[in-house]
Protein backbone atom coordinates (compact mmCIF):
# COMPACT_ATOMS: atom_id res chain seq x y z
CA UNK A 1 0.00 0.00 0.00
CA UNK A 2 1.26 3.36 -0.95
CA UNK A 3 1.76 6.18 1.44
CA UNK A 4 -0.72 8.97 1.05
CA UNK A 5 1.87 11.47 0.05
CA UNK A 6 3.24 9.47 -2.85
CA UNK A 7 -0.12 9.46 -4.61
CA UNK A 8 0.10 13.15 -5.22
CA UNK A 9 2.17 13.49 -8.31
CA UNK A 10 4.64 16.22 -7.93
CA UNK A 11 3.53 19.22 -9.94
CA UNK A 12 5.87 19.54 -12.89
CA UNK A 13 7.38 23.01 -13.01
CA UNK A 14 6.06 24.67 -16.13
CA UNK A 15 8.86 26.32 -17.99
CA UNK A 16 7.64 28.98 -20.39
CA UNK A 17 8.76 28.16 -23.87
CA UNK A 18 9.77 24.56 -23.30
CA UNK A 19 6.74 23.63 -25.41
CA UNK A 20 8.23 25.66 -28.22
CA UNK A 21 11.50 23.74 -28.34
CA UNK A 22 9.74 20.41 -27.83
CA UNK A 23 7.40 21.00 -30.78
CA UNK A 24 10.28 22.31 -32.86
CA UNK A 25 12.35 19.18 -32.24
CA UNK A 26 9.45 16.80 -32.69
CA UNK A 27 8.27 18.33 -35.96
CA UNK A 28 11.77 18.47 -37.37
CA UNK A 29 12.27 14.81 -36.48
CA UNK A 30 8.95 13.88 -38.06
CA UNK A 31 9.84 15.81 -41.19
CA UNK A 32 13.12 13.96 -41.55
CA UNK A 33 11.41 10.62 -41.03
CA UNK A 34 9.01 11.44 -43.89
CA UNK A 35 11.38 12.80 -46.47
CA UNK A 36 8.86 12.22 -49.23
CA UNK A 37 6.65 14.90 -47.73
CA UNK A 38 9.48 17.40 -48.06
CA UNK A 39 10.04 16.49 -51.69
CA UNK A 40 6.43 16.74 -52.90
CA UNK A 41 6.04 20.54 -52.86
CA UNK A 42 9.45 20.87 -54.51
CA UNK A 43 8.58 18.46 -57.29
CA UNK A 44 5.27 20.23 -57.73
CA UNK A 45 7.13 23.54 -58.00
CA UNK A 46 9.48 22.25 -60.69
CA UNK A 47 6.76 20.49 -62.71
CA UNK A 48 4.39 23.45 -62.54
CA UNK A 49 7.10 25.82 -63.74
CA UNK A 50 7.91 23.40 -66.58
CA UNK A 51 4.31 23.61 -67.75
CA UNK A 52 4.61 27.29 -68.59
CA UNK A 53 7.10 27.12 -71.48
CA UNK A 54 5.16 24.12 -72.81
CA UNK A 55 1.95 26.12 -72.83
CA UNK A 56 3.31 29.50 -73.91
CA UNK A 57 6.50 29.33 -75.92
CA UNK A 58 10.13 28.36 -75.49
CA UNK A 59 11.21 31.78 -76.72
CA UNK A 60 13.94 33.03 -74.32
CA UNK A 61 12.87 36.67 -74.50
CA UNK A 62 9.26 35.97 -73.69
CA UNK A 63 10.19 33.63 -70.87
CA UNK A 64 12.65 36.11 -69.39
CA UNK A 65 9.83 38.65 -69.26
CA UNK A 66 7.52 36.26 -67.49
CA UNK A 67 10.09 34.50 -65.27
CA UNK A 68 9.62 36.52 -62.03
CA UNK A 69 5.87 36.14 -62.17
CA UNK A 70 5.94 32.45 -63.04
CA UNK A 71 8.34 31.55 -60.27
CA UNK A 72 6.45 33.59 -57.69
CA UNK A 73 3.03 32.23 -58.61
CA UNK A 74 4.27 28.65 -58.61
CA UNK A 75 6.09 29.10 -55.29
CA UNK A 76 2.85 30.50 -53.87
CA UNK A 77 0.89 27.49 -55.09
CA UNK A 78 3.47 24.99 -53.83
CA UNK A 79 3.46 26.63 -50.41
CA UNK A 80 -0.34 26.71 -50.42
CA UNK A 81 -0.63 23.02 -51.22
CA UNK A 82 1.79 22.02 -48.50
CA UNK A 83 0.27 24.16 -45.77
CA UNK A 84 -2.88 22.05 -45.76
CA UNK A 85 -1.04 19.29 -43.90
CA UNK A 86 0.35 21.64 -41.26
CA UNK A 87 -2.07 20.58 -38.51
CA UNK A 88 -3.80 17.64 -40.20
CA UNK A 89 -1.76 14.71 -38.83
CA UNK A 90 -1.68 16.18 -35.35
CA UNK A 91 -5.41 16.74 -35.49
CA UNK A 92 -6.12 13.19 -36.60
CA UNK A 93 -4.03 11.46 -33.94
CA UNK A 94 -5.05 13.76 -31.10
CA UNK A 95 -1.71 15.49 -30.54
CA UNK A 96 -3.29 18.81 -31.32
CA UNK A 97 -5.82 18.36 -28.56
CA UNK A 98 -3.02 17.69 -26.09
CA UNK A 99 -1.30 20.87 -27.24
CA UNK A 100 -4.46 22.89 -26.79
CA UNK A 101 -5.05 21.67 -23.24
CA UNK A 102 -1.40 21.74 -22.18
CA UNK A 103 -0.26 24.56 -19.89
CA UNK A 104 2.26 25.69 -22.51
CA UNK A 105 1.28 28.74 -24.54
CA UNK A 106 -0.35 27.53 -27.75
CA UNK A 107 0.93 30.67 -29.46
CA UNK A 108 4.54 29.51 -29.19
CA UNK A 109 3.78 25.95 -30.20
CA UNK A 110 1.96 27.13 -33.31
CA UNK A 111 4.90 29.39 -34.09
CA UNK A 112 7.25 26.40 -33.77
CA UNK A 113 5.13 24.36 -36.16
CA UNK A 114 5.11 27.20 -38.68
CA UNK A 115 8.89 27.62 -38.42
CA UNK A 116 9.39 23.92 -39.12
CA UNK A 117 6.93 24.10 -42.01
CA UNK A 118 8.93 26.92 -43.51
CA UNK A 119 12.23 25.08 -42.96
CA UNK A 120 10.98 22.02 -44.84
CA UNK A 121 9.02 23.79 -47.62
CA UNK A 122 9.74 27.50 -47.96
CA UNK A 123 13.48 27.22 -47.62
CA UNK A 124 13.89 24.35 -50.14
CA UNK A 125 11.57 26.19 -52.55
CA UNK A 126 13.75 29.27 -52.28
CA UNK A 127 16.89 27.24 -52.89
CA UNK A 128 15.37 25.56 -55.97
CA UNK A 129 14.24 28.86 -57.44
CA UNK A 130 17.61 29.88 -59.00
CA UNK A 131 17.68 26.65 -60.99
CA UNK A 132 14.23 27.36 -62.40
CA UNK A 133 15.16 31.00 -62.93
CA UNK A 134 18.06 29.85 -65.08
CA UNK A 135 15.76 27.59 -67.11
CA UNK A 136 13.47 30.57 -67.69
CA UNK A 137 16.38 32.85 -68.69
CA UNK A 138 15.95 35.29 -65.82
CA UNK A 139 18.49 38.13 -66.24
CA UNK A 140 21.39 37.93 -63.78
CA UNK A 141 20.40 41.04 -61.83
CA UNK A 142 17.14 39.39 -60.84
CA UNK A 143 18.64 36.54 -58.81
CA UNK A 144 19.47 38.36 -55.59
CA UNK A 145 16.02 39.99 -55.12
CA UNK A 146 14.34 36.73 -56.17
CA UNK A 147 16.15 34.81 -53.44
CA UNK A 148 15.73 37.46 -50.75
CA UNK A 149 12.10 37.96 -51.68
CA UNK A 150 11.34 34.27 -51.64
CA UNK A 151 13.06 33.84 -48.28
CA UNK A 152 10.83 36.52 -46.75
CA UNK A 153 7.76 35.71 -48.82
CA UNK A 154 7.58 31.95 -48.28
CA UNK A 155 7.86 32.55 -44.52
CA UNK A 156 4.90 34.91 -44.74
CA UNK A 157 3.02 32.34 -46.83
CA UNK A 158 3.59 29.71 -44.13
CA UNK A 159 2.42 32.10 -41.41
CA UNK A 160 -0.74 33.23 -43.22
CA UNK A 161 -1.42 29.71 -44.44
CA UNK A 162 -1.33 28.50 -40.82
CA UNK A 163 -4.42 30.61 -40.06
CA UNK A 164 -6.30 29.02 -42.94
CA UNK A 165 -5.07 25.54 -42.03
CA UNK A 166 -6.16 26.04 -38.42
CA UNK A 167 -9.60 27.24 -39.52
CA UNK A 168 -10.20 24.31 -41.85
CA UNK A 169 -8.45 21.47 -40.00
CA UNK A 170 -11.68 20.07 -38.55
CA UNK A 171 -13.42 20.01 -41.94
CA UNK A 172 -13.36 16.84 -43.97
CA UNK A 173 -12.70 18.55 -47.29
CA UNK A 174 -10.75 21.53 -46.12
CA UNK A 175 -8.14 21.70 -48.86
CA UNK A 176 -9.99 23.63 -51.52
CA UNK A 177 -11.62 25.86 -48.95
CA UNK A 178 -8.21 26.59 -47.47
CA UNK A 179 -6.89 27.87 -50.79
CA UNK A 180 -10.04 29.91 -51.26
CA UNK A 181 -9.70 31.78 -48.00
CA UNK A 182 -5.93 32.12 -47.96
CA UNK A 183 -5.12 33.19 -51.52
CA UNK A 184 -6.54 36.73 -51.28
CA UNK A 185 -4.39 37.24 -48.20
CA UNK A 186 -1.29 36.11 -50.12
CA UNK A 187 -1.72 38.76 -52.79
CA UNK A 188 0.27 41.65 -51.25
CA UNK A 189 3.31 39.40 -50.79
CA UNK A 190 3.02 38.20 -54.38
CA UNK A 191 2.80 41.76 -55.66
CA UNK A 192 5.83 43.00 -53.76
CA UNK A 193 7.85 39.86 -54.41
CA UNK A 194 7.33 39.61 -58.15
CA UNK A 195 7.69 43.33 -58.72
CA UNK A 196 10.94 43.57 -56.75
CA UNK A 197 12.49 41.11 -59.21
CA UNK A 198 11.01 43.06 -62.10
CA UNK A 199 12.42 46.28 -60.72
CA UNK A 200 15.87 44.77 -60.30
CA UNK A 201 15.84 43.68 -63.95
CA UNK A 202 14.86 47.19 -65.00
CA UNK A 203 17.68 48.56 -62.84
CA UNK A 204 15.53 50.24 -60.21
CA UNK A 205 16.33 50.10 -56.50
CA UNK A 206 14.60 47.14 -54.84
CA UNK A 207 15.14 47.97 -51.18
CA UNK A 208 11.63 49.47 -50.95
CA UNK A 209 9.52 46.43 -51.81
CA UNK A 210 11.88 44.10 -49.98
CA UNK A 211 11.68 46.23 -46.84
CA UNK A 212 7.89 46.17 -47.12
CA UNK A 213 7.96 42.40 -47.42
CA UNK A 214 10.10 42.26 -44.30
CA UNK A 215 7.56 44.46 -42.53
CA UNK A 216 4.70 42.21 -43.64
CA UNK A 217 6.64 39.19 -42.40
CA UNK A 218 7.28 40.78 -39.00
CA UNK A 219 3.63 41.71 -38.70
CA UNK A 220 2.44 38.27 -39.77
CA UNK A 221 4.85 36.62 -37.32
CA UNK A 222 3.16 38.48 -34.47
CA UNK A 223 -0.46 38.22 -35.54
CA UNK A 224 -0.67 34.87 -37.32
CA UNK A 225 0.17 32.55 -34.36
CA UNK A 226 -2.42 34.44 -32.33
CA UNK A 227 -5.15 33.98 -34.93
CA UNK A 228 -4.07 30.39 -35.63
CA UNK A 229 -4.11 29.49 -31.94
CA UNK A 230 -7.60 30.98 -31.61
CA UNK A 231 -8.75 29.10 -34.70
CA UNK A 232 -7.28 25.84 -33.39
CA UNK A 233 -9.16 26.22 -30.12
CA UNK A 234 -12.36 26.67 -32.11
CA UNK A 235 -11.58 23.67 -34.29
CA UNK A 236 -11.00 21.52 -31.21
CA UNK A 237 -13.90 22.54 -29.04
CA UNK A 238 -16.43 24.11 -31.33
Amino acid at each position, binding site marked *: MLAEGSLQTEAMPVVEGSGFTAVLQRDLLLAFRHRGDIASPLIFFVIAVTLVPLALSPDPEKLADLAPGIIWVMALLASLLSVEGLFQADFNDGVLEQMVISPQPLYLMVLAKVIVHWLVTGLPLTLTAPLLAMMLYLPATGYAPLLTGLLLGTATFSLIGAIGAALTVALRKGGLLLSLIVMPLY*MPVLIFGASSVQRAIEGINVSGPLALMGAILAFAAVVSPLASAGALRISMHG
Partner: protein
Amino acid sequence: MWTLFKQWFHKMGSPRWFYYATGRWLPWLGLVTLVCLVTGLIWGLAFAPEDAKQGNSFRIIYIHVPASMLAMAGYYVMAVAGAIGLIWKMKLADMVMKSAAPIGAALTAIGLFTGAIWGKPTWGAYWVWDARITSMLILLFLYLGVMALQYSYRSQDMANKASAILALVGTVNIPIIYKSVDWWFTLHQPATIKFTEASSMHPDMFRPLLLMIVGFYAFYTLVLILNTRVEIIQRERRTRWVGELMGEA
Protein backbone atom coordinates in the same frame (compact mmCIF):
# COMPACT_ATOMS: atom_id res chain seq x y z
CA MET B 1 -26.02 58.53 -22.31
CA TRP B 2 -23.68 55.70 -21.32
CA THR B 3 -26.34 53.89 -19.28
CA LEU B 4 -28.72 54.24 -22.18
CA PHE B 5 -26.15 52.68 -24.46
CA LYS B 6 -25.58 49.88 -22.00
CA GLN B 7 -29.30 49.18 -21.78
CA TRP B 8 -29.52 49.11 -25.53
CA PHE B 9 -26.52 46.80 -25.72
CA HIS B 10 -28.10 44.35 -23.29
CA LYS B 11 -31.36 44.44 -25.18
CA MET B 12 -29.50 43.65 -28.37
CA GLY B 13 -28.32 40.48 -26.68
CA SER B 14 -31.83 39.14 -27.02
CA PRO B 15 -32.74 38.02 -30.53
CA ARG B 16 -36.36 38.05 -29.48
CA TRP B 17 -36.24 41.73 -28.56
CA PHE B 18 -34.47 42.50 -31.82
CA TYR B 19 -37.07 40.60 -33.79
CA TYR B 20 -40.00 42.48 -32.30
CA ALA B 21 -38.27 45.88 -32.31
CA THR B 22 -37.23 45.61 -35.95
CA GLY B 23 -40.72 44.43 -36.81
CA ARG B 24 -41.89 47.88 -35.78
CA TRP B 25 -39.11 49.70 -37.65
CA LEU B 26 -39.37 47.79 -40.90
CA PRO B 27 -42.31 49.62 -42.50
CA TRP B 28 -40.66 53.00 -41.89
CA LEU B 29 -37.29 51.84 -43.10
CA GLY B 30 -38.93 50.32 -46.14
CA LEU B 31 -40.70 53.58 -46.87
CA VAL B 32 -37.47 55.61 -46.60
CA THR B 33 -35.67 53.14 -48.86
CA LEU B 34 -38.42 53.20 -51.45
CA VAL B 35 -38.75 56.98 -51.52
CA CYS B 36 -34.97 57.58 -51.70
CA LEU B 37 -34.29 54.96 -54.34
CA VAL B 38 -37.24 55.79 -56.58
CA THR B 39 -36.78 59.55 -56.50
CA GLY B 40 -33.00 59.20 -56.70
CA LEU B 41 -33.20 56.90 -59.70
CA ILE B 42 -35.74 58.98 -61.61
CA TRP B 43 -33.89 62.18 -60.79
CA GLY B 44 -30.51 60.74 -61.68
CA LEU B 45 -31.51 58.82 -64.79
CA ALA B 46 -33.96 61.27 -66.31
CA PHE B 47 -33.44 64.78 -64.97
CA ALA B 48 -29.79 65.19 -64.01
CA PRO B 49 -27.80 66.99 -66.71
CA GLU B 50 -25.86 64.97 -69.25
CA ASP B 51 -22.12 64.71 -68.74
CA ALA B 52 -20.15 66.87 -71.15
CA LYS B 53 -17.64 64.15 -72.06
CA GLN B 54 -19.34 60.87 -71.29
CA GLY B 55 -22.87 61.68 -72.33
CA ASN B 56 -25.54 59.51 -70.83
CA SER B 57 -23.28 56.61 -69.94
CA PHE B 58 -22.10 58.35 -66.79
CA ARG B 59 -25.57 57.85 -65.28
CA ILE B 60 -24.62 54.40 -64.12
CA ILE B 61 -22.73 56.04 -61.25
CA TYR B 62 -26.08 56.41 -59.52
CA ILE B 63 -25.93 52.68 -58.91
CA HIS B 64 -22.20 52.04 -59.20
CA VAL B 65 -20.97 54.50 -56.58
CA PRO B 66 -23.43 53.69 -53.77
CA ALA B 67 -23.08 49.94 -54.32
CA SER B 68 -19.28 50.13 -54.17
CA MET B 69 -19.38 52.33 -51.07
CA LEU B 70 -21.59 49.87 -49.24
CA ALA B 71 -19.56 46.91 -50.42
CA MET B 72 -16.63 48.38 -48.50
CA ALA B 73 -18.66 49.46 -45.47
CA GLY B 74 -20.39 46.09 -45.41
CA TYR B 75 -17.13 44.28 -44.82
CA TYR B 76 -16.53 46.34 -41.72
CA VAL B 77 -20.09 45.74 -40.53
CA MET B 78 -19.45 42.03 -40.91
CA ALA B 79 -16.06 42.15 -39.18
CA VAL B 80 -17.27 44.30 -36.28
CA ALA B 81 -20.28 42.02 -35.79
CA GLY B 82 -17.93 39.04 -35.85
CA ALA B 83 -15.65 40.65 -33.27
CA ILE B 84 -18.60 41.41 -30.99
CA GLY B 85 -19.76 37.83 -31.36
CA LEU B 86 -16.29 36.51 -30.51
CA ILE B 87 -15.64 38.81 -27.56
CA TRP B 88 -19.04 39.15 -25.88
CA LYS B 89 -20.52 35.90 -27.26
CA MET B 90 -23.57 37.80 -28.38
CA LYS B 91 -25.86 35.54 -30.37
CA LEU B 92 -27.36 38.38 -32.34
CA ALA B 93 -23.94 39.60 -33.51
CA ASP B 94 -23.19 36.16 -34.96
CA MET B 95 -26.44 36.22 -36.85
CA VAL B 96 -25.77 39.72 -38.17
CA MET B 97 -22.33 38.62 -39.33
CA LYS B 98 -23.69 35.64 -41.20
CA SER B 99 -26.38 37.78 -42.81
CA ALA B 100 -23.99 40.56 -43.78
CA ALA B 101 -21.64 38.37 -45.85
CA PRO B 102 -23.91 37.53 -48.83
CA ILE B 103 -25.28 41.09 -48.96
CA GLY B 104 -21.79 42.54 -49.07
CA ALA B 105 -20.69 40.04 -51.69
CA ALA B 106 -23.72 40.86 -53.84
CA LEU B 107 -23.04 44.60 -53.56
CA THR B 108 -19.39 44.07 -54.49
CA ALA B 109 -20.49 42.05 -57.51
CA ILE B 110 -22.94 44.80 -58.48
CA GLY B 111 -20.18 47.38 -58.10
CA LEU B 112 -17.86 45.36 -60.35
CA PHE B 113 -20.58 44.61 -62.88
CA THR B 114 -21.83 48.19 -63.22
CA GLY B 115 -18.20 49.32 -63.39
CA ALA B 116 -17.60 46.96 -66.30
CA ILE B 117 -20.67 48.25 -68.13
CA TRP B 118 -19.53 51.80 -67.54
CA GLY B 119 -15.99 50.97 -68.56
CA LYS B 120 -16.93 49.79 -72.06
CA PRO B 121 -18.05 53.16 -73.47
CA THR B 122 -15.65 55.19 -71.32
CA TRP B 123 -12.36 53.28 -71.58
CA GLY B 124 -13.21 50.97 -74.47
CA ALA B 125 -12.87 47.82 -72.40
CA TYR B 126 -15.04 45.96 -69.95
CA TRP B 127 -12.16 45.12 -67.71
CA VAL B 128 -9.13 47.22 -66.89
CA TRP B 129 -6.54 46.16 -64.32
CA ASP B 130 -6.95 49.39 -62.46
CA ALA B 131 -5.95 49.54 -58.80
CA ARG B 132 -9.46 50.22 -57.55
CA ILE B 133 -11.11 47.56 -59.68
CA THR B 134 -8.53 45.00 -58.63
CA SER B 135 -8.98 45.79 -54.96
CA MET B 136 -12.75 45.43 -55.36
CA LEU B 137 -12.17 42.04 -56.95
CA ILE B 138 -10.00 40.98 -54.01
CA LEU B 139 -12.70 42.26 -51.65
CA LEU B 140 -15.15 39.98 -53.44
CA PHE B 141 -12.76 37.06 -52.89
CA LEU B 142 -12.55 37.90 -49.18
CA TYR B 143 -16.34 37.91 -48.94
CA LEU B 144 -16.60 34.61 -50.77
CA GLY B 145 -14.01 33.09 -48.43
CA VAL B 146 -16.00 34.08 -45.35
CA MET B 147 -19.19 32.74 -46.92
CA ALA B 148 -17.57 29.46 -47.95
CA LEU B 149 -16.19 28.98 -44.45
CA GLN B 150 -19.54 29.85 -42.92
CA TYR B 151 -21.39 27.26 -44.95
CA SER B 152 -18.87 24.43 -44.65
CA TYR B 153 -19.15 23.88 -40.90
CA ARG B 154 -21.89 21.62 -39.61
CA SER B 155 -21.93 23.22 -36.18
CA GLN B 156 -23.30 26.73 -36.38
CA ASP B 157 -21.27 27.82 -33.37
CA MET B 158 -17.98 26.76 -34.94
CA ALA B 159 -18.98 28.35 -38.21
CA ASN B 160 -19.62 31.65 -36.44
CA LYS B 161 -16.33 31.75 -34.61
CA ALA B 162 -14.25 30.54 -37.54
CA SER B 163 -15.71 33.02 -39.99
CA ALA B 164 -15.40 35.81 -37.42
CA ILE B 165 -11.67 35.10 -37.13
CA LEU B 166 -11.34 35.07 -40.91
CA ALA B 167 -13.29 38.31 -41.22
CA LEU B 168 -11.01 39.95 -38.65
CA VAL B 169 -7.86 38.70 -40.36
CA GLY B 170 -9.29 40.06 -43.60
CA THR B 171 -9.94 43.43 -41.97
CA VAL B 172 -6.33 43.66 -40.85
CA ASN B 173 -5.29 42.78 -44.38
CA ILE B 174 -7.55 45.15 -46.29
CA PRO B 175 -5.33 48.25 -45.90
CA ILE B 176 -2.24 46.20 -46.81
CA ILE B 177 -3.98 44.77 -49.87
CA TYR B 178 -5.19 48.18 -50.96
CA LYS B 179 -1.80 49.80 -50.58
CA SER B 180 -0.03 46.96 -52.37
CA VAL B 181 -2.49 46.96 -55.27
CA ASP B 182 -2.19 50.71 -55.52
CA TRP B 183 1.58 50.43 -55.60
CA TRP B 184 1.43 47.56 -58.08
CA PHE B 185 -0.74 49.62 -60.40
CA THR B 186 1.44 52.71 -60.33
CA LEU B 187 4.46 50.53 -60.99
CA HIS B 188 3.01 48.65 -63.93
CA GLN B 189 0.95 51.22 -65.72
CA PRO B 190 1.15 54.95 -65.89
CA ALA B 191 -2.10 56.47 -64.65
CA THR B 192 -3.72 57.08 -67.98
CA ILE B 193 -7.22 56.55 -66.70
CA LYS B 194 -8.63 59.16 -64.43
CA PHE B 195 -11.75 58.55 -62.47
CA THR B 196 -14.27 61.33 -62.43
CA GLU B 197 -13.78 62.96 -59.10
CA ALA B 198 -16.92 63.09 -57.05
CA SER B 199 -15.97 66.38 -55.42
CA SER B 200 -15.72 68.20 -58.72
CA MET B 201 -19.16 67.07 -59.78
CA HIS B 202 -21.77 69.60 -60.63
CA PRO B 203 -24.32 69.98 -57.80
CA ASP B 204 -27.15 69.05 -60.16
CA MET B 205 -25.46 65.70 -60.73
CA PHE B 206 -24.32 65.31 -57.16
CA ARG B 207 -27.65 65.78 -55.38
CA PRO B 208 -29.37 62.73 -56.87
CA LEU B 209 -26.22 60.74 -56.15
CA LEU B 210 -26.37 61.78 -52.51
CA LEU B 211 -29.99 60.69 -52.40
CA MET B 212 -29.05 57.34 -53.93
CA ILE B 213 -26.30 56.86 -51.35
CA VAL B 214 -28.75 57.51 -48.52
CA GLY B 215 -31.19 55.17 -50.23
CA PHE B 216 -28.58 52.44 -50.56
CA TYR B 217 -27.66 52.75 -46.88
CA ALA B 218 -31.32 52.39 -45.97
CA PHE B 219 -31.65 49.50 -48.38
CA TYR B 220 -28.61 47.79 -46.90
CA THR B 221 -29.97 48.17 -43.37
CA LEU B 222 -33.34 46.88 -44.51
CA VAL B 223 -31.94 43.79 -46.19
CA LEU B 224 -29.56 43.14 -43.30
CA ILE B 225 -32.43 43.29 -40.82
CA LEU B 226 -34.61 41.05 -42.99
CA ASN B 227 -31.82 38.49 -43.37
CA THR B 228 -31.08 38.60 -39.65
CA ARG B 229 -34.74 38.08 -38.84
CA VAL B 230 -34.81 34.96 -40.97
CA GLU B 231 -31.64 33.80 -39.27
CA ILE B 232 -33.19 34.44 -35.85
CA ILE B 233 -36.30 32.42 -36.68
CA GLN B 234 -34.17 29.61 -38.05
CA ARG B 235 -31.82 29.38 -35.10
CA GLU B 236 -34.40 30.01 -32.39
CA ARG B 237 -36.99 27.71 -33.92
CA ARG B 238 -37.01 25.49 -30.86
CA THR B 239 -37.82 28.31 -28.44
CA ARG B 240 -41.31 28.94 -27.25
CA TRP B 241 -41.68 32.48 -28.57
CA VAL B 242 -40.91 31.43 -32.13
CA GLY B 243 -43.34 28.55 -31.77
CA GLU B 244 -46.03 30.96 -30.67
CA LEU B 245 -45.15 33.37 -33.45
CA MET B 246 -45.38 30.66 -36.07
CA GLY B 247 -48.57 29.33 -34.55
CA GLU B 248 -50.08 32.76 -34.84
CA ALA B 249 -49.10 33.28 -38.42
